[in-house]
């Protein structure tokens, strides 16, 4: 900042009192700039920006690998390589595959479904704090950002699902009508992810440090969610567990969505391995996180972008 050695004297008359200006604005029907719209209006604004949300997420996805020689092939390669690493460590070295029928489809489904939740939440944490330039330059309901990042992850998951179908067929899992159940399961999981992302986006906007902490939280969550091992198998081995441990592990939203997807896709993963009222659980988590996260995010709408 340059210094003013001799500030010129202020000119003009004294500024009008604050009341005058507010009254003038009220008389001409002006509204406060940057005020938070009511919830219903906010939903309408968001709906009006649906094309932006979709275009932004697709653009992010395309830009991700545009410099790589193999380009969009990485969309499928990355999840496959991930699954291969987990197979090597957990399936072969640690031997968690014992007692789990169709272990490879079981593992790969778990990894893909979990990655969807994990990367949605990670992206959501940085949705506002990592895009301050956008937030400070353009007008749009800020919820568009976390939702758009979740949509990007959903698109990424759809690529992974294509790879998953190939793996399923290669390991002799038959095509079944139950595969259609994957769609409602994905819809519920997306709603859940978007809700949690919005909660994290608000927290990350206020305290960017949370982004440093999230990988550890998420890794812990992954290990208790039965991504690479079967929860009911483990409970069978540890008969000394208190009776509440198994239901709590199974009610964990990540475990619910993973098991639903396995139930839908893998024929040897029967309904007996699902917790009771699994669809109610899945819908309940989606509703709780989705609606709660949205309202929580909206409550701080006008503060996003403060430096």
């Amino acid at each position, binding site marked *: 900042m340059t210094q003013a050695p001799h500030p010129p004297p202020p000119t*003009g008359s004294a500024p009008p009192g604050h009341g005058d200006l507010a009254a003038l604005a009220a008389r*001409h029907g002006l509204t406060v700039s940057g005020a938070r719209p009511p919830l219903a209006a906010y939903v309408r604004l968001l709906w009006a920006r649906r094309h932006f949300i979709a275009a932004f997420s697709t653009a992010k996805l395309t830009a991700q690998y545009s410099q790589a020689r193999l380009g969009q092939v990485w969309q499928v390669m990355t999840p496959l390589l991930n699954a291969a690493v987990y197979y090597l460590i957990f399936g072969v070295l640690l031997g968690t595959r014992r007692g789990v029928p169709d272990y490879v489809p079981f593992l790969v489904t778990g990894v893909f479904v979990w990655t969807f939740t994990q990367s949605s939440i990670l992206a959501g944490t940085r949705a506002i704090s990592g895009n301050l330039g956008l937030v400070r330059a353009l007008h749009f309901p800020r919820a568009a950002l976390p939702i758009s990042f979740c949509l990007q992850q959903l698109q990424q998951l759809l690529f992974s699902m294509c790879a998953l179908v190939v793996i399923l067929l290669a390991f002799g899992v038959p095509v079944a009508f139950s595969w259609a159940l994957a769609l409602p399961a994905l819809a519920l999981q997306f709603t859940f992810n978007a809700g949690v992302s919005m909660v994290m986006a608000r927290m990350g906007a206020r305290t960017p440090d949370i982004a440093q902490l999230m990988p550890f939280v998420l890794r812990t969550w992954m290990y208790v969610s039965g991504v690479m091992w079967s929860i009911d198998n483990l409970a069978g081995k540890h008969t000394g567990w208190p009776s509440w441990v198994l239901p709590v592990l199974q009610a964990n939203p990540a475990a619910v969505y993973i098991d639903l997807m396995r139930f839908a896709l893998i024929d040897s993963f029967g309904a007996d391995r699902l917790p009771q009222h699994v669809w109610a659980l899945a819908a309940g988590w989606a509703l709780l996180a989705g609606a709660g996260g949205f309202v929580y995010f909206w409550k701080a709408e006008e503060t996003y972008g403060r430096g």
Partner: protein
Amino acid sequence: MAEHPNPQHPAPASGGGAIPTVVADGVDVVYRVNGTGAGRGSATAALHRILRRGPAERTAGVRTVHAVRDVSFVAYKGEAIGLVGTNGSGKSTLLKAVAGLLPVERGRIFTDGQPSLLGVNAALMNDLTGERNVHLGGLAMGMSREQIRARHQEIVDFSGINEKGDFITLPMRTYSSGMAARLRFSIAAAKDHDVLLVDEALATGDRSFQKRSEARIRELRKHAGTVFLVSHNNKSIRDTCERVLWLERGELRMDGPTDDVLKEYESFTGGKGAGPKPAAGPKPTPEVRPGEGAGRVPS
């Protein structure tokens, strides 16, 4: 200062029934910067701050920058208002606050409709083609897909990107900085706004593109209710604006007709910001400290 209603003001619109479009009422904008407190950087200092929770916790690690102080003004329909001031005087911050993009600390800003900042840079992605960026930028500004489709060719032609070959289908990272700036301006200027806020946009591109963009700004002004223009180029302020706000260290120093304010401003800055030509270097004059000149080179 904000004189309303003031007969000596450039008559807004039809003279009689002046309609205010932007009312700033004692506005303060404060930036909070994390991690500039004393001893930041050393882990022990950070730990110390965390351990000493309490009322002082907020102020300990966070420094505040008071960018705009108690600014009040009324802008009317049909006005084009220039904002001048030395670097870091709070011009861009004030624009962002008017646009509702930065929350105000004190006071309030009332607006008619939604003021928009001219610029879509942040929404564009260098790895995407120019074409897709036109689409994305348009959507980011709130245009509908039909509007974008209708304007697409116009935007591409205006930017002149395709004058030297089929560049619009190449990723933006392959553009020269001038080409990218031209495309950004073309996208941003494709939408009509109620209240338009322009921050130094006229300085992009080569001479012929500058002329085209000045013409486009004038056109936008016709459609827009009110235009705010931030520039270090006093000539473009003279050409476009009839009223000027002068900010210095976040305070509104002067508000009045362009000629009056710019005369004062130029004598304050040593008159070197007057022309479109950049000052050759810091010429020590009695009023200006050495080094001041470099800060005001029209960018």
